[in-house]
């Protein structure tokens, strides 16, 4: 596969390491009353769609960026690639 890195252009996916669903960015609040339930849901349950999937790839043999790749799990077509840091910031994740 080819991942079109937002900074570096098309790269062989072999340079990357895969993690999983991009929802892993949305780590719950540890102080929530139902924190254990939220963490269970966050860590273990997946939409696992047959279709568009937003997922995390790490450019391990490249610039060490984590990327959010939107890819169709039926065809492997990739429709967008973003820097995960930008996605995380846009979701309001901060200190």
């Amino acid at each position, binding site marked *: *596969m*080819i991942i079109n890195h937002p900074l570096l252009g*098309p790269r*062989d996916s072999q340079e990357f*390491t895969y*993690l999983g669903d991009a929802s*892993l*960015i949305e*780590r*719950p609040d*540890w*102080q929530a009353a139902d*924190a*254990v339930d939220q*963490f*269970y849901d966050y*860590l273990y349950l997946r939409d696992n769609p047959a279709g568009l999937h937003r997922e*995390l790839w*790490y450019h*391990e043999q490249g610039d*060490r*960026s*984590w990327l959010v790749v939107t890819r169709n799990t039926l*065809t*492997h*077509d*990739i429709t967008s690639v973003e*820097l*995960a*840091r930008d*996605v*995380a*910031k846009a979701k309001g*994740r*901060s*200190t």
Partner: protein
Amino acid sequence: MSQINRIAGGLIDRQKTLEFQFDGKTYQGHPGDTLASALLANGVRLMGRSFKYHRPRGPLTAGSEEPNAIVALRAGARQEPNARATVAELYDGLTARSQNHIGRLSFDLLAVNDLLSPFFAAGFYYKTFMWPKAFWEKLYEPIIRRAAGLGSLSGQPDPDLYDKGFLHCDLLIIGAGPAGLAAALTAGRSGADVILADEDFVLGGRLNSETYRLDEATGADWARAAVAELASLPNVRLMARTTVLGAFDHGIYGALERVADHLPSPAAGTPRQILWRIYTKRSLLCAGAIERPIAFENNDRPGIMLGSALRSYANRWGAAVGQEVAIFTNNDEGHSTARDLLAKGLRIAAVIDSRADAPKSTAYEVLAGAVVTNTAGRLGLRSVTVGLPNGQSRRIDCQALGVSGGWNPNVHLTCHQRGRPSWDAGLAAFVPGANLPMGMSVAGAAMGQMSTTAALASGAAAAVACLADLGVSASLPKLPATEDSPLRLTPLFHVPGKGRAWLDQQNDVTVKDVKLAHQEGYISVEHLKRYTTLGMATDQGKTSNIGGLAVMAEMTGKSIPETGTTMFRPPYTPVSIAAFAGRASGVDFRPTRLTPSHHWAAEQGAVFVEVGMWLRAQWFPRAGETTWRQSVDREVLATRKSVGICDVTTLGKIDVQGTDAAEFLNRIYANAFGKLGVGKVRYGLMLREDGIAMDDGTTARLAEDHFVTTTTTANAVGVYRHLEFCRQCLWPDLDVQIISTTEAWAQYSIAGPNARKLLEKIVDPAFDISNAAFPYMGCGEITVCGGLRARLFRISFSGELAFELAVPTRYGDALMRRLVEDGREYDATVYGTEALGVMRIEKGHAAGNELNGTSTALNLGMGGMVSKKKDAIGSTLSEREGLNQPDALRLVGFRPVDPQHNFAAGSHLIGKDAEANAANDQGYLTSVAFSPSLGHSIGLGYLKNGAARTGEILRAVNPVQNAETLVEVVSAHFIDPEGERLRA
């Protein structure tokens, strides 16, 4: 031996004669020959045996789709089983042997299977061999296994080299026939980066096998001129002998280049084959079409082949299959074959044309509306029986029969991403469907453009379109005037009859087998092929799948496309496993990482051990030591007595900087890091988000905003990735920067009561490393040996007074030598990983065997370290009930009740009087070593509720090695439990 069937013409070099051997007999051929063409020229039609019935077989085709002429090439370690004689280039000294027979090829004892064929119908083995139960493995299966298989491996390591390579292009053109050449000329002239790949060793495809002209030139000459022009263009890469084997995601293609298969052996240091990974923006499939046979009774005899193959052998290779040739056709191609062969001086016994309106000829006899109903000639065709339209039959003597059943566009690569082809009723064949791999277009016969004129035009037009997508403008070239006859065909897939008519010749699947599959309900294509093995042979059904489908369609009363479609998977043709491995085999399977003291250690005769990709010194044998234990015991005792030195560079080191570095580490580690003082080191336990221990190590604070954190050797890469994830994805606003410095620093542990004394000889006097100035868990940036920048950490894995000293890696070798030299007065001993392991077990430190991916902080006895006052990765889920059960496993120590007894890691713990079974399992031993300090074996292990069971006697059972030892539960800290040595 004369080449009795060598005829005039062809693209062979008659100036040179090559000698080769087949089944021990010597023959002659010429450069440009394949093994098959040379054997045919020598009058040899019998080249192999079929898989199941061991029927005598000769080539069916003249290409890579060959099912029958499968031989073993070369001998010794270079023996290659299952090679297709039809594409094996002849070289001087080539040796080949036929396969899959007992006794001579012409008298195969296993041909008895053919007589027994009524019992060996499709799927017969699913219905029998079940009784008595034990007989399957003892009797039936060994017999079946011995009979099965085709060729043999030599059993020796492959001596050749294989390379991998990576290419980038705008347009990859697959196939260099008329469409591919026209496309390449079009694209090449535009200046785009073009790769033109073809499996053949001569580019031109069917242009080299046909007799029509392109303008005034012969096909071969036109192709040669086109290739010459392409070779002159710097932006075009021509790749002959290169099979594009698969279409993978996003325009990546795999291709196998056979660099040296046409040579006796590769030149020294150069590869036999190269596996290319080709990154394309667009690709154009010009793979042509494959002629298909018609099934009829005994249609598998040597001498019966595709009409196009007869033409290829005659026109390209100057080889006749026999002097008298019959043709069986359902379309006009058969007549072209007859004309070509007549022109070569061969006799046409008859053209049997199944169409009532067959074209007439004055040059040869045409039997219109007739079919071949049977053949004769066990080891080679002698005659065919023709069923005439009037119901009568006629025997015709011939040594060759050319069969033309129509053409199947070569859609193979269009299916590699599970696209399905669609049915073209006009061609009675599948053509590429709508779901092509990304960026792929198809042209020429592969797209169903069956005339040469159409192929040239479609190739050129497709190239223009592909380049337009890329913003490159290309113009259509002037194309030559040439053959443009329509394909006139009346579909005929098999001739009805009672006998066996072969569809899949290699696997011996007949029309009857397909009918039986239908009768038993194995109707879907997937069931059909799995039940009958249709299309599963080395040719993957390139000449047989459609025939099988057609028979099934007939049985179900549905059309062929309603019955199913053909599907192909990579590779296009079989690829040697070694080619996919490339250079990564043997000792080069993975790179080797060497430590800074490696060269010194090698000089000392150290024994090395693989630790991940690292090679580390395991122990350092000395003269007189005959067992590893002697060396290791010495290293441990010497360290504990005075001082030992160990290269610990392999531990991961991560530089963590930034104003939020402390807060970052606080969230990464289960224990708190915020208040760690500058110049201090702290042990850290890192959890996964699921609350299981991920890694541990020490972190040193070099400055308010600068930490150096260490990981275990095994987890260095994973921890770094995890930290980047946390930094970029979870807390993107923290001011923290990380980078690995593992290799930048050579780091040595100096441990033992005299560690400080030794170090004081090395550390520059400006730095006070006394216990008061540099206490346990202290760290600092210092200089050594007269000004070299270094880092010193007072940490201990062994349990002794110990330091770790780091210097820039290039000085690591010299530092080791200096330490050894300066350490002589203290009997300083360099120790390896084995002694390191013994000492950490003696001290009760957890390592890889304990951090096994299922252990929590509680299991490790560090439950109290998990801070509840802050958020850290893993802290929330570590609270789950299943991870906090009262009888949770706890890491404890074990010693044998009888100090003379040994025990082994991996033993399970069973109550003293309980039966040894899974229900009574109390835990297991993770690490065991002989402690030279204590004089007996010691172990660490996980025991249910272990912390409360000190003093209990258990059995360490090791049934798989018939061993059992009584052990006592003790503290895991065998040495210096109070930690006095550390702080000395």
